[in-house]
């Protein structure tokens, strides 16, 4: 039940886009059509699903105060947590590179349709944000961290697909000229954020 709670919370209540605005840059840039939105969203789910648990293990077995005690008792007083940013971003960059190579090898069609967006996931703030929230909230075990990562990814996926669908439709509406494109997308995202706030307080 704990897992379901974390999952639902990460998707709806603490949605990466609507509650924390993470990954907004690619969210705005790639949401012009549903097709690219789905592709990037799926890649984000995948990358969050593997980087959050790996970073969780890094945090708990290398960086945290006393985390190195499995190596030797003298190291139990070491606190490397100031290095966490550099560690997290290095792991994310490396994993994205790995994912890119794997996708290129085993699914060339998907690779060419994602194009430049795949490597750009490395600098998508929702990925690093996932790792940093994981660190801040101190999940009890790897399973919870994984569920949190996957849930955040699904939430991001949901948001980008929804906005892409709205943007496809809004092309036929008469939006005031200065508001076209970026402006109206911001305002719609804001309104969707207000809608998502109605999920607040749900406990499972």
């Amino acid at each position: 039940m704990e897992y379901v709670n974390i999952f639902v919370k990460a998707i709806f209540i603490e949605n990466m886009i609507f509650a924390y605005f993470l990954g907004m840059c690619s969210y705005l840039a790639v949401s012009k059509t549903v097709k690219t939105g789905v592709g990037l969203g799926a890649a984000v789910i995948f990358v969050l699903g593997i980087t959050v648990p790996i970073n969780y293990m890094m945090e708990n077995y290398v960086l945290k105060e006393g985390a190195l005690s499995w190596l030797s008792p003298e190291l139990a007083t070491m606190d490397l947590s100031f290095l966490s940013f550099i560690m997290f971003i290095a792991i994310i960059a490396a994993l994205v590179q790995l994912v890119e190579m794997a996708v290129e090898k085993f699914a060339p069609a998907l690779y060419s349709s994602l194009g430049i967006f795949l490597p750009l996931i490395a600098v998508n703030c929702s990925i690093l944000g996932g790792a940093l929230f994981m660190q801040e909230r101190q999940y009890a075990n790897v399973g919870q961290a994984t569920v949190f990562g996957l849930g955040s990814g699904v939430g991001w996926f949901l948001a980008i697909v929804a906005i892409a669908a709205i943007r496809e439709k809004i092309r036929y509406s008469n939006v005031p000229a200065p508001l076209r494109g970026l402006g109206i997308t911001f305002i719609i995202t804001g309104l969707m954020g207000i809608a998502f706030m109605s999920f607040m307080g749900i406990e499972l």
Partner: protein
Amino acid sequence: MSEVAVAEVVKEPLFSKKNRALISNPLDDDNPITVQVLGICSALAITVQVKQALVMTLSVMFVTAAGNVIVSAMRNYIPNRIRIIVQLVIVAALVILVDQVLKAFVYDISKALSVFVGLIITNCIIMGRLEAFALANKPWPAFLDGIGNGLGYGVILITVSVFRELLGSGKLWGFPVFGHKVGALLSDGTLATEASGLYALGYVDNGLMILPPMALITVGALIWIQRSRNTKLIEG
């Protein structure tokens, strides 16, 4: 021939017109947030208070300027294939510096900013400027470009936070501007038992402005204003 060679050697003044444009362009025509659409993630989340917005602006300005200078100085030595990782490492090191300084001197603000200090690493303004400018330019223009883009980011951040703090909690920089509500903590440490200022006239804070979605709508409105004034930015 020789004249051309001499002309090339002549040093550009430090604040030539071109260099001044590096600072002034990002403020309006080429604003990182409203025109280049970069660095939005962090810009929206920390605009509830002007104080947080200012600290964030200064941090981002430092990281863009210093990162630009470092990458620009190293630009001839960074292999093209691994440049993203090199840039990320440089930026991450600078952000660690900022994070430690904030923790040491303004601990409460650093707590309020929480994960968003760390997220400066993936702030697209920084990566964008490193990729688009620092890799192709000398350190001094790169420095000015970093400062300029930091300022352009800050202008939006602070404008949004002024609206949100003023309308959302009736304060600016933590000082009550619209008077006191019942139960507000006064400067002498007592609790206000009577509403003063605008609150006495029946004014009520707009709680919606404090909620996250209003940051998006405020930025949307700013974009609307900017593009009505500057029609060449309108998207087709």
